[in-house]
């Protein structure tokens, strides 16, 4: 089979990624133009490490956004003649180039890596966000009140933390468990935390000022309920509801308006497992920060003013804990990416057709595959590594910048 050679591959990949370069260029020009008004984000570009971190992260974000334009083929489409094709191989039928070769099922490795970015970059930040909200909602009272609340919650968090992640995944992300209530109950409870968080947030701020309180609360509840139902509205959950005679409820959550995310039962399962595994870590950090901030003078001042505990926690402590929390969120997105890769690598949760990087690494790391067709495993491995590296660099320079303040 003819190939386009190394130079052809490099120029081909750079050419396919044109929307990403355009977007990066626009971003850089905007940053250069307005960099004095951007605050922390603008200052990231003062160091090489920070610039590299932002650029790598932005590169992957834009790749995920423009995945449909960048990838020449659908990640699931099979071109029989290109099975295990070498990088740069040209399809003799239509002259199409497989820039990074074909995999063992004759799919384009490049397209799969690009679409994999989309999966990873939707699940990982979303799961991290929910884990942050869960951790903050539980960690703030634990650190602020101390006492029995603290010891109970800390005991539960340590319980989850003492659980080896891999065992947790093997127990929690199996096809069998989708037939039980466990993922739905866990998901239902975990996804309630963001709604509760924002309700309390607005209530403590606007209590007594109904003209502001009512619209904010209403918006939170409506949006929250919509998001919650969207996450929960999987076919199997509806089936479980029908089993116990709640058909109207099942039909209700299956309305098209609640299917905006198009979430599959196994995706819900992964999502729940990842959020569950990372919330205790956030809890510990928030609790530690809260215990530290509690002793400051402005908290004492707020207490003297007679503010309610939840107002102090959400409007006095949380904004002052944002620095470490942003750094932790960056690191945690990277860690969640690694967790997702682990799940894919063990074939847990993700469908076998799924283009996510973990599954691709698993397929490419069979002994024979790695010996003869190394690009199948190395491409997703390098993609995953570079994304996590970018996030870690970003977190590192964010930490440095926030220490300067």
């Amino acid at each position: 089979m003819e190939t386009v050679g190394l130079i052809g591959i490099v120029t081909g990949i750079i050419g396919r990624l044109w929307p990403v370069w355009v977007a990066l260029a626009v971003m850089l020009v905007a940053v250069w133009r307005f960099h004095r008004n951007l605050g922390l984000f603008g200052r990231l570009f003062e160091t090489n490490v920070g610039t590299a971190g932002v650029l790598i992260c932005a590169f992957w974000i834009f790749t995920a956004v423009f995945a449909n334009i960048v990838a020449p083929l659908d990640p699931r489409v099979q071109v029989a003649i290109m099975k295990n094709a070498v990088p740069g191989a040209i399809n003799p039928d239509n002259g199409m180039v497989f820039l990074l070769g074909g995999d063992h099922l004759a799919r384009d490795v490049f397209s799969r890596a690009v679409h994999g970015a989309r999966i990873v970059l939707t699940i990982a930040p979303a799961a991290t966000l929910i884990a942050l909200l869960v951790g903050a909602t539980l960690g703030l009272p634990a650190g602020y009140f101390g006492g029995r609340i603290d010891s109970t919650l800390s005991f539960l968090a340590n319980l989850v933390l003492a659980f080896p992640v891999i065992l947790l995944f093997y127990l929690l992300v199996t096809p069998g468990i989708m037939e039980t209530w466990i993922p739905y109950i866990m998901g239902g409870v975990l996804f309630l935390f963001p709604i509760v968080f924002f309700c309390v947030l607005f209530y403590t701020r606007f209590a007594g000022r109904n003209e502001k309180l009512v619209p904010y609360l209403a918006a939170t509840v409506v949006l929250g309920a919509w998001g919650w139902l969207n996450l929960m509205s999987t076919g199997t959950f509806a089936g479980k509801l029908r089993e116990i005679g709640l058909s109207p409820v099942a039909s209700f959550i299956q309305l098209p308006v609640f299917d905006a995310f198009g979430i599959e039962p196994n995706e819900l399962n992964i999502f729940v497992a990842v959020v569950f595994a990372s919330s205790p870590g956030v809890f510990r950090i928030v609790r530690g920060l809260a215990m530290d901030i509690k002793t400051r003078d402005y908290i004492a001042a707020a207490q003297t003013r007679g503010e309610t505990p939840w107002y102090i926690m959400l409007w006095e402590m949380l904004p002052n804990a944002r620095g470490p929390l942003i750094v932790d969120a960056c690191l945690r997105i990277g860690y969640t990416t690694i967790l997702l890769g682990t799940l894919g690598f063990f074939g847990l949760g993700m469908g076998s057709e799924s283009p996510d990087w973990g599954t691709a690494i698993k397929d490419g790391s069979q002994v024979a595959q790695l010996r003869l067709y190394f690009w199948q495993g190395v491409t997703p491995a390098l993609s995953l590594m570079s994304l996590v590296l970018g996030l870690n660099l970003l977190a590192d320079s964010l930490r440095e910048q926030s220490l300067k303040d």
Partner: protein
Amino acid sequence: MLLTMLCLSAVVFMFVNLEPNLRKLAIFQTEMRASDQDLENWLQRNGYRDNYAARFGRWIGVWPKEPARDPATGAIMPRFRYCDEPTESRLAGVLQGDFGCSTAFRTTVNQRLPEALKATGILMFWVMIVMVPVSLLIGVLAGMREGSRLDRSLSVASIASTATPEYVSGVIFTAVFASWLGWLNGSAATAITKGVSFNNFTLPVMTMAIYGIGYIARMTRASMAEVMTAQYIRTARLKGLSFGGVVVKHALRNALIAPFTVIMLQFPWLLTGVVVVESIFNYKGFGWLLVQAASNNDIDLVLACGLISVLLVLLTQLISDIGYAFLNPRIRVA
């Protein structure tokens, strides 16, 4: 700690004994075309339908295990043919040292577990031998002159290593060193049969060490950088001691307190690494056993593996607390 352990094993016990798992087990153990009624009878006869507390108590060994009997004749029918199950009612659980019967390997768990643990112990030993000195060296070198070029480049290198999970470095190392250069074995299977050698063990050890090195090195660097700004270091320097002498004699001991805790707490993380590395390199240790057990619905073996990993995690937490108090004279255990 005992309470944590009891809670966790109860949770694991609940998860492995979920209805779909039991059903799969029953289908696997009865003939191919068994009806639902047959499956139900099998589960009933072997005590899987007793209440949860009794079954958990039996597994722990605080409640007597009844031998399974044929309901019609009352004769004793062993649950699994390949294990010696008790023939009279007696306590036989974890506390008595009986971990039950592995359905995937058709033998008792007690026969598989020790050798797997030994194999993993050897792997862990070599990983620690490589990981701890390398990461401490990197951390101390980077931390002794904060902000120098050496510090910058080593810090970026350790960030890169924390961004490389085992399955990524395993794939890349195998592709480079085994497939391309052909220097090393891409599989560690021979390490069990023929013994550990440089060829078959370098890749797994390297793969596992690389993820941990970055983390420990960063902790060491932070702690070293903090110590180097302390007053007594300045005093020592002003006294005219050489820079190297100050680092080795005065700074090192105080700088190594924090990394010690981190190293101990690395054990639970290494557990995930063990599972990944042992599956990539086909090394039949504890992690491999866990994967086999979990993917073959081997209830007793998963329980045993779960118990051991939880025990490991809790023990390392305890040791790190004790060691911290021992190393740091400012902390006294109340």
